[in-house]
């Protein structure tokens, strides 16, 4: 009887258990690897007007096969190479350019100069000029072709294998950069590790907190010096600007508080009642670790974004000038 009752209760509870589960599909673990679509200058023969179109097509190939393209992680790229297999120019009015193009796509590690995956597709292109023919041919490039799935999958797997096997190298590289005070670049390298490479990701996150602290302290000294110099010049607004950049997680925070206090007292003594500057404060409930990771990410993204051309001026000759 007792058994029947338990079974009965279990049967009643079953629908609720099922309902409580999220019916949304989970993001594929591998889907979190990022790849940048890019047409290097060295990819010769592609008319300027067709480059943007080709880049868009590659972005679509990446996204449609579950790999998020990200302009701020330019280490792993999807790049093209276009070979003209046949070219005919008809003696008609207007002359028509008929091209057979072989478009080869590569997923590469631009830093290590390694090809992870490749595939090629042949397109027929016709137009009243060569540029128009290229555009017409690339426009018809079918990004849903079955071959691209395998191409991207192989690329993703290789990227993950890279992080799993080269995690120590990535971390040592970051530490070395931090030693040279290149904190932003170091943080960028650590925070580029996809979270699907769980073990490496966790280690890199821990290290990124450590490096972010070094970065924060380094910046703190800079801001304090700026604030002191401004105050010495009796420029309270400028001093406030520097002090405003100092957050409670920075080592020199107490000194900043002290300077703020000093400035406030002096201002009050001088009869000025308008200096309402307050130092930043954290709520106790804030997860400081998470906050530091996020701050580190912001630093890395900003560094990659603003300095992208200078920071990622990869040499592509290894791929195009064989």
């Amino acid at each position, binding site marked *: 009887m007792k058994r029947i009752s338990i079974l009965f209760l279990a049967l009643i509870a079953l629908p609720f258990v099922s309902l409580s589960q999220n019916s949304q599909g989970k993001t594929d673990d591998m889907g979190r690897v990022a790849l940048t679509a890019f047409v290097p200058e060295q990819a010769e023969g592609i008319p300027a007007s067709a480059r943007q179109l080709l880049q868009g097509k590659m972005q679509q190939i990446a996204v449609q096969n579950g790999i998020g393209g990200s302009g701020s992680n330019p280490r792993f790229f999807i790049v093209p190479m276009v070979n003209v297999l046949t070219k005919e120019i008809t003696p008609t009015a*207007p002359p028509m350019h008929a091209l057979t193009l072989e478009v080869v796509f590569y997923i590469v590690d631009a830093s290590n100069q390694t090809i992870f995956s490749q595939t090629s597709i042949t397109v027929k292109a*016709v137009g009243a000029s060569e540029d128009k023919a290229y555009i017409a041919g690339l426009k018809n490039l079918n990004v849903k072709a079955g071959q691209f799935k395998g191409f991207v999958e192989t690329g993703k797997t290789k990227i993950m294998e890279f992080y799993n096997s080269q995690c120590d190298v990535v971390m040592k590289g970051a530490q070395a950069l931090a030693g040279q005070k290149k904190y932003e670049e170091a943080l960028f390298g650590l925070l580029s590790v996809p979270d699907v490479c769980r073990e490496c990701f966790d280690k890199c996150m821990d290290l990124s907190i450590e490096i972010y602290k070094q970065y924060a302290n380094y910046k703190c000294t800079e801001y304090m010096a700026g604030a002191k110099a401004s105050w010495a010049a009796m420029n309270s607004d400028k001093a406030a600007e520097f002090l405003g950049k100092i957050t409670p997680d920075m080592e020199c925070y107490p000194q900043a508080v002290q300077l703020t206090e000093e400035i406030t007292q002096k201002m009050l003594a001088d009869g000025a009642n308008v200096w309402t500057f307050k130092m930043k404060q954290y709520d106790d409930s804030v997860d400081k670790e998470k906050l530091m990771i996020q701050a580190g990410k912001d630093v890395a993204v900003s560094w990659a974004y603003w300095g992208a051309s200078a920071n990622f001026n990869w040499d592509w000759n290894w791929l195009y000038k064989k």
Partner: protein
Amino acid sequence: MKNKLIYLFISALLLVSVSGAFSQAKKPTIMVVPSDVWCNTNGYMLEFDNQGTKVKVPDYKKALQENADLLLAISKVNELMATRGFPLKNLESALKTLQDQAAEDAMLTSKGGAEVNESPIDKLKKVAKADIWMQITWTVNQTGPKKSVTFNLQGLDSYTDKQIAGASGTGKPSFSAELPVLLEEAVLAHIDNFNVQLQAHFDDMFANGREVILRVKTWSSFDGDFTTEYDGKELTEVIEGWITENTVQGRFSTTDATENMLLFEQVRIPLMDANNKAVDTRGWARNLQKMLRDKYQLDSKLMMKGLGQAQLVIGEK
């Protein structure tokens, strides 16, 4: 005397019926273009690098936009041909229509957002077309103070590549005449001779059928080739047999034949079918397509190029 009258009456009747039938037949289109030599001499060429080889093609658009003499020569030929019953297509207008059509195709969308289907072959065909090209060349000769014009007009069948009419010669040298006047004189002096030959070509076409070209090829997906046997005959023989039966007096020549392609030239197809309907090469080749499908279950794709060229690719549609 009575016999003579009857003979005359029958002759007149035949002439009327012949010209009536010709007017129903699909007429070839004619267009005047400057020759490659003229374009090259006058700097109206486009130069391209075709995988290491320099290719030069005439830039008709530029020539028409910049050279007033060319415009005059074309306009004079057009005018004289029209008054002689051969209205011509105008190259400049044809080029403008092509440009206009290309823009229209690019903008055309359905309510659902669909675009117009256009294969690379469709695109390749977006060029000025004519069944007969009248290629015009002239050079100005200067002997001391005297000037004369050497004029050459060639009528070329765009499918058979044959010259079907031609007129050339040098006009009288003149001290005072301007180039446009000399050009006009040259056109006038040669156009009638040219037209006689053109008319002879049309008469021959009516009597012996239109001369066309047929290419037969196979898709790579086709399980077989032209040596594959059907009912004890190779596919080449089957096709040749059909062409023999369906050409005027069985006239054609097999210019090229391999296991993958057949080229038939000087194929004389009738201008009218059994139901007295006008026939072009595609309509004629469609019957071959039907025969291959019905009798041998061979699917094929039929493509045309103007009135005088058709291409049948066997294996699938």
